[in-house]
């Protein structure tokens, strides 16, 4: 175990990718589960705060400490076991998404969740129920976690295997590995029926493992997990489709979801006109009359590859006169070039924010599919009305947008914040969520109240108390 007391030695651990900054007394880097047990047990006895630290790629300040000790998981970085037969991979919690992808390359198997941030760790992904572009077809992290090893705030360990511990209606009662009984009641929440990562996951008769996935590290420290893998598709066809009209793109989107048998994309990512304008700076060749672009990926086989190309061409030609400009990727290197299109964007936006010296305001809201166009138009109208500079991209397949508002001064920032809240309220009133993938952390707590009543949030708090009566672990996240 390594302990550092000098702030100079752990400054990097006081921030995450949101640039929100915290403070702490010391940094602890445990090297095995027993050390974590001892650290947590002592924290509970002495009532001092522990904040779990992953890769620091989060966007809501969840790993940012607000006093107490930082518990960095960085030594839990080993891939433990690859079971080809069962298609599972056992990893420690600091293994990064990129390492998992590299490890499985060429094995014929893959781990479906693919958050844009490839340096994020599996522990962080579990804490956040992370999603990615492929969530459109495959769902979020939740579906691919078979088992987790947890150390609870009391220092006891709890192994949760999917399919073993269920709630009885809205009541949980189970024992830790050491035999301590834990019981609590779940609030009766109806979660939005969209991609969702705000507050605890609650369902009648739910599996205990699902409560820990997306709990933002408030209930226990995940030290390892068994991941479920899937067979890799034989071939993947990637494409950037350019649209010369607003309606053309939204019609393409609603129709492609109905063509399941002909073209069944595994991801659909959106770039608005302002994204296109920013990208022109680094990526030449974008057709001049482009209004919007979509990045899609379709799984196919060697045998069907030609047919898929033809189908995509015929289908796309109904919605855009730029069909002949569609960019295509057929191998990994070409896919990486298309993904570059997506990854360049946040960088270009950060550069602008830096230039304007203002805080970033970015939405993470999602709405039910039938409202995707209405919701998009609602946002754009508000931005135009308030004369705010904005860039919108996102996982449009899941009707999930990242609308980034770029403000140049305090006054603009204040107006932008009102617009931001308005947009979140609109999402909730359409049956959507305020956060589809980034989570609540410390930065979005006030917005959770738009989605849930005080009573429900109190219900969440009771769950937290059942595991962490002294409120020592990841204090400030969610609540």
């Amino acid at each position, binding site marked *: 175990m*390594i302990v550092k007391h000098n702030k100079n030695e752990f400054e990097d651990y006081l921030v995450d990718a949101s640039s929100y900054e915290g403070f702490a007394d010391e940094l602890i880097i445990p090297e095995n589960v027993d050390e974590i047990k001892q650290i947590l047990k002592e924290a509970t006895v002495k009532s001092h705060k522990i904040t779990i630290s992953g890769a620091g790629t989060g966007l809501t300040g969840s790993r940012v400490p607000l006093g107490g000790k930082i518990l960095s998981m960085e030594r839990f970085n080993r891939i433990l076991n690859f079971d080809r037969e069962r298609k599972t991979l056992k990893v420690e919690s600091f293994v990064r998404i990129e390492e998992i992808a*590299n490890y499985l*390359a*060429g*094995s*014929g198997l893959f781990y479906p969740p693919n958050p844009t941030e490839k340096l994020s760790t599996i522990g962080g992904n579990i804490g956040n129920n992370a999603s990615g572009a492929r969530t459109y077809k495959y769902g979020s992290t939740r579906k691919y976690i078979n088992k987790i090893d947890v150390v609870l705030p009391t220092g006891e360990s709890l192994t949760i295997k999917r399919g073993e511990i269920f709630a009885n209606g809205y009541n949980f009662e189970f024992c830790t590995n050491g035999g301590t009984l834990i019981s609590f009641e779940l609030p009766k929440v109806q979660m939005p029926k969209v991609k969702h990562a705000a507050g605890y996951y609650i369902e009648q008769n739910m599996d205990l493992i699902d409560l820990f996935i997306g709990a933002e590290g408030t209930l226990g420290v995940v030290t390892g997990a068994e991941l479920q893998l899937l067979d890799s598709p034989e071939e993947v066809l990637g*494409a*950037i489709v350019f649209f010369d009209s607003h309606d053309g793109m939204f019609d393409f989107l609603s129709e492609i979801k109905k063509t399941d048998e002909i073209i069944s994309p595994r991801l659909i990512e959106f770039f608005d006109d302002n994204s296109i304008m920013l990208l022109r700076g680094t*990526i*030449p*060749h974008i057709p001049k009359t482009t209004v919007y672009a979509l990045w899609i990926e379709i799984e196919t086989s060697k045998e069907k590859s*030609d047919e898929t*190309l*033809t189908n*995509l*061409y015929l289908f*796309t030609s109904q919605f855009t006169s730029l*069909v*002949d*400009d*569609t*960019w*295509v*990727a*057929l*191998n*990994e*290197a*070409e896919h*990486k*070039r*298309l993904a570059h299109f997506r990854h360049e964007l946040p960088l270009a936006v950060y550069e602008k924010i830096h230039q304007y010296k203002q805080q970033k305001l970015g939405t993470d809201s999602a709405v039910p599919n039938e409202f995707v166009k209405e919701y998009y138009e609602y946002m754009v109208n508000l931005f135009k009305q308030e004369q705010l500079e904005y860039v919108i991209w996102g996982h449009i397949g899941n009707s999930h947008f990242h609308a980034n508002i770029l403000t140049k001064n305090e006054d603009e920032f204040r107006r932008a914040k009102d617009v931001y809240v308005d947009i979140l309220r609109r999402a909730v009133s359409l049956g959507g969520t305020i956060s589809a993938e980034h989570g609540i952390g410390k930065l979005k707590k006030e917005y959770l109240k738009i989605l849930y009543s005080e009573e429900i949030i109190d219900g969440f708090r009771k769950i937290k108390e059942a595991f962490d009566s002294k409120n020592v672990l990841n204090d400030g996240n969610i609540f």
Partner: protein
Amino acid sequence: MNILVCVSRVPDTATRIIVGSDGKSIDKNGVKYIVNPYDEFALEEGLRLREKNGGSVTAITVGTDAATDVLRTALAMGVDKAILVKGDEPTDSYYVAYNIAKIAKEINPDLIILGRQSIDFDSFQLPSMLAEMLGMPSVSVVSALKIENGQVSAERDVEGGKETVACSLPCIISAQKGLNEPRYPKLPDIMKAKSKPIDTREAEKTEPKTSIIGMEIPSKARAGKVLEASDANIDEIVRLLKEEAKVI
């Protein structure tokens, strides 16, 4: 302008390379192949020159039937013709250069462009060998190219700066990253490329000038050592740097 672009089929950069059981080649199981990334700059430059000056671009590769796929990619990017010199899978640069030179003599290109190196064997030899065999000037590792009135001006990256080299046509140019931003193959062009003819020739066997004796994966970086923070450890650090790391 008649342009010949040489392309090579190489393992995808994302592939995890495993040495095969013979210890001299890679295990091809599950390996996907791509156009050598430096050759994409060569293809793009050829296409741009054609768009500006007219003429035609021919892509050529030496290899087995499997190499057809990189020619299809070249056709999808927009080359006019594709030639497969069919033979053994190349491991010896001389064999490749000899067979390309043979075709070049037949089609008399004004300009031959190729990537600075292929990322599988990294031999760097092809441009110079071709130049020698064809008696043409060659400029390697070019990051900017201008051709006006038959005069070539090529910019090269050199240590700490750039140098500009002039020569006349016909010549050989090897492409460096930064020469251009290769275009993305477009959907209708990929579909059309599938049915375009590929001119297949028989490769001539040559006496190998080099042969592979063995192949191994580089060993992983050594694991670091963490010493507890105390003054007493300074002697230990000095000892380790001297005796183990052998850097002082």
